[in-house]
């Protein structure tokens, strides 16, 4: 924690010649010296795009609207990627075979978040985890709930918890969070390739 009772730290001394910008000479515009100088500006910019996620991600998002998780397989290595981007990072070749995945997964890695990054959307502390969905070869991010944060560990088996069927859309937010599914933990040695 920062000690707010102490005074500001001393300014950093910059060695002479390393960096310097000479003081401006205001003698010809002396009246500007008597008013408060502008030191910063707001440089706000906003740009709107019509975003398209591409073919593979569209296939993934259309499936997720049907409460299904669909990965895509690398033709060279057989690895299954989720969410698919259309190309295998190992072979550089297109992934064209869709693979129906399970709706359960395994914690590969996790962290306990004690800072409110979400503007009170999540009660802290909460657990953010890398989850290996059954049938896939690369973990995805997810929240882990319905379990005390200090009981989460790699190998923990999870089920995906979805929004109501009537609320399903083409969005990854269909999965609200992940929760223990009651199955025994997966041994750490089985996860070595995914960390």
């Amino acid at each position: 924690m920062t000690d707010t009772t102490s005074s500001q730290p001393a300014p950093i001394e910059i060695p002479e010649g390393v960096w310097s910008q000479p003081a401006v000479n205001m003698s010809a515009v002396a009246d500007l010296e008597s008013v408060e100088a502008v030191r910063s500006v707001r440089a706000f910019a906003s740009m709107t795009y019509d975003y398209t996620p591409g073919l593979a991600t569209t296939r993934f998002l259309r499936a997720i609207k049907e409460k299904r998780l669909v990965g895509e397989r690398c033709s060279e290595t057989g690895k299954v990627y989720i969410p698919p981007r259309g190309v295998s990072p190992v072979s550089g070749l297109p992934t064209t075979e869709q693979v129906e995945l399970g709706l359960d997964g395994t914690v590969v890695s996790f962290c306990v978040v004690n800072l409110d990054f979400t503007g009170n959307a999540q009660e802290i502390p909460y657990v953010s985890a890398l989850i290996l969905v059954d049938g896939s070869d690369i973990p995805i991010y997810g929240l882990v709930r319905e379990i005390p944060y200090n009981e989460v560990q790699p190998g923990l088996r999870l089920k995906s918890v979805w929004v109501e069927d009537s609320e399903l859309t083409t969005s990854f937010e269909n999965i609200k969070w992940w929760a223990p599914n009651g199955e025994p933990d997966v041994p750490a040695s089985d996860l070595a390739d995914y960390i």
Partner: protein
Amino acid sequence: MPEDATTMGDEDVLRAPLVLEYPFKRTTGPVIGAFLTALREGRFIGIEDDNGKVLCPPVEYDPASGASLTKLVPVGSEGEVLSWSWNQSVRDGQPLDHPFAWVMVQLDGADTPMMHVVDAPHEAMATGMRVRARFASERIGSMDDLLCFEPVS
């Protein structure tokens, strides 16, 4: 059944609006800060190079030699249009909400032009025309303090 990548038409691909915002605050340093301070006071300043040439708007270093520039000097609020183009369809964020001219305007006392806009009819625009600055009534020390230029009648 999953859709086949080879037959998926453009109309089948998802689309969504995406807004990217850059809410940056930038420090000005003493030279640009002085120019914006002057704008807030409703006037212009430039900076003199080693040959006595006045650059407006001012910069910290000579764009040709890289030498530090320090001597701020007053510059007039009227000037001459050196080049112009016509902006028929106004885009978000541009200085005026109706068609206007972009100009390179060289202010009296300056030796370089600045890019800004002129509020005038298309047919009134001409290289060499005289224009004067129109300032905002409430000024905060930003480029928004200078609304535009207008023809000197």
